């Protein structure tokens, strides 16, 4: 946009700048006024509501809330990791030429996408009803001892996520040109090597943006884990509100934490996407920091000739 600064003509006499009266956009002014009015009304309504905003900052850094935020963060990361790994495996199974593995993968996705996460969480938590004893041969225990809130939350959220991730990964893998597989095979690479070194790195460009979306969703969906007594943010906020009577206030506190977590992750996602954009275009887009720096230096060089004059 501000490139014009660089294009100083070689001629010694700079051309006269055009000084025209810009077109007036009255519609924009009206639209802006309406939007601002609506926002003010909403703001007034909220500030007049019977909500004690004073307690919100106090509870934001409350130990219980902090521990809840920490639980939310780590269950989301772990469940996402499980979903990602299992998702890749399911995607490969789904695309394999073996009809048994591809059918199993299809059924997995069908079941886990087709039933509510809430139900899946509760099923894992109550799995002792089906398998009272866990017997792995080398390890034997009562299922009720094994299925902690953490494990139920991890399995419930992670296995559900895997179904979604497998579809995302499959779309990513299928977006890579077949010529890439051929070239790899022609060089003597095995199927596994081809996948790891050639296909997946390219598929990542398609996989990362929806995965970021999934992760942000996961941060919020993890609140459902309160039904299995997992101490995440919403459960902790509810615990406090049941004694302090600050019900809505505590949901505000929790929401601020969710916003904070999703914002941080959005920034992380931007840099991950940038990393996998390597080679996809002639030059990488600048990071916000680089853009800021460039604009500043451009502004400086723009000012200098004026000073000199």
């Amino acid at each position, binding site marked *: 946009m501000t490139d014009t600064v660089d294009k100083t003509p070689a001629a010694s006499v700079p051309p006269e700048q055009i000084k025209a009266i810009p077109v007036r956009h009255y519609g924009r002014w009206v639209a802006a006024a309406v939007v601002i009015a609506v926002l003010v009304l909403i703001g007034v309504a909220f500030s007049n509501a019977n909500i004690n905003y004073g307690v919100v900052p106090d509870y934001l850094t409350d130990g219980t809330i902090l521990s809840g935020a920490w639980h939310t963060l780590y269950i989301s990361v772990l469940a996402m990791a499980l979903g990602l790994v299992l998702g890749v495996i399911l995607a490969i199974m789904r695309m394999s030429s073996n009809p048994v593995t591809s059918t199993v993968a299809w059924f997995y996705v069908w079941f886990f996408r087709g039933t509510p996460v809430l139900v899946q969480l509760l099923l894992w938590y109550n799995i002792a009803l089906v398998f009272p004893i866990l017997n792995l041969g080398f390890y034997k225990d009562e299922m009720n001892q094994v299925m902690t809130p953490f494990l139920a939350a991890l399995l419930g959220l992670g296995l559900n996520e895997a179904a979604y991730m497998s579809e995302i990964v499959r779309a990513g893998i299928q977006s890579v040109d077949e010529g*890439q597989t051929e*070239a790899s095979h*022609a*060089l*003597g*690479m*095995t199927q596994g090597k081809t996948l790891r*070194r050639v296909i997946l790195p390219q598929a990542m460009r398609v996989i990362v943006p929806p995965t970021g979306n999934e992760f942000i969703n996961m941060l919020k969906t993890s609140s459902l884990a309160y039904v299995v007594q997992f101490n995440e943010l919403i459960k902790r906020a509810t615990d406090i509100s049941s004694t302090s009577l600050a019900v809505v206030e505590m949901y505000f506190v929790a929401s601020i934490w969710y916003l904070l977590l999703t914002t941080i992750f959005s920034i992380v996602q931007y840099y991950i996407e940038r990393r996998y954009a390597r*080679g996809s275009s002639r030059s990488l887009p600048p990071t916000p920091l680089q853009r800021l720096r460039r604009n500043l230096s451009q502004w400086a060089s723009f000012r200098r000739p004026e000073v000199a004059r």
Partner: protein
Amino acid sequence: MSSLVKDITPPSSGAPMVKAEGVHKSFGLAHILKGIDLEVLPREVFCLIGPSGSGKSTFLRCINHLEKISAGRLYVDGQLVGYRQHGDKLYELKEKEVAAQRRDIGMVFQRFNLFPHMTALENVMEAPVQVKGESKAVARERAQRLLDRVGLGDRTGHYPAQLSGGQQQRVAIARALAMQPKLMLFDEPTSALDPELVGEVLDVMRDLAEDGMTMIVVTHEMGFAREVGDSLVFMDDGVVVESGHPRDVLTNPQHDRTKSFLSKVL
């Protein structure tokens, strides 16, 4: 001037590098190759011409087992491609064994098929490091030398998207050569290029031929075939119609089908 191929793997014997005996290939009901018999001698530049859809690419892809042949026998350097024979029974080779056979056969594609997420240098280093387990230092040294030789020594850090078509194809040739193959397959390497870029790729191929590389070249560049080729085969509808020295076939074709094809492309 250093040669493109420092150490061409010498053929095991004076026997043909590629030998096809009655090779058939069908895709479902479509019968594409209908009994191909031919021999490619070591150090020979073997040109394959023919109308679109005649099965040239399919035959080339059979040679490194990207396609399985439906009938007949195909040998590279005396070894059966894709199978092992015990008595009169054929056993399919395992994935690893097929991959091992392909190491010695370089292939260059019409659409380059460079790895877009790797720089030119990384493209050339990839297979030696990943497939042969070469050290990065050795692979990088050879990659640099090969890129120098195809005239791209100053473009090693460029991604494919930052290179012209001709430059990409030259990187692709360097990438295939990095595996020190004993045979190179070219599938219309210049067809996707702007006319003014064709020459730079043909020059590299000419150098390679002079270095004694065995090459099978599917091409529409009759000038190249006549000048560099040692043998030429005209294929149509899945069969070899005519073969011989390029000069003879191109200037004095015997079959009507060859004549009508050449009258269209020359």
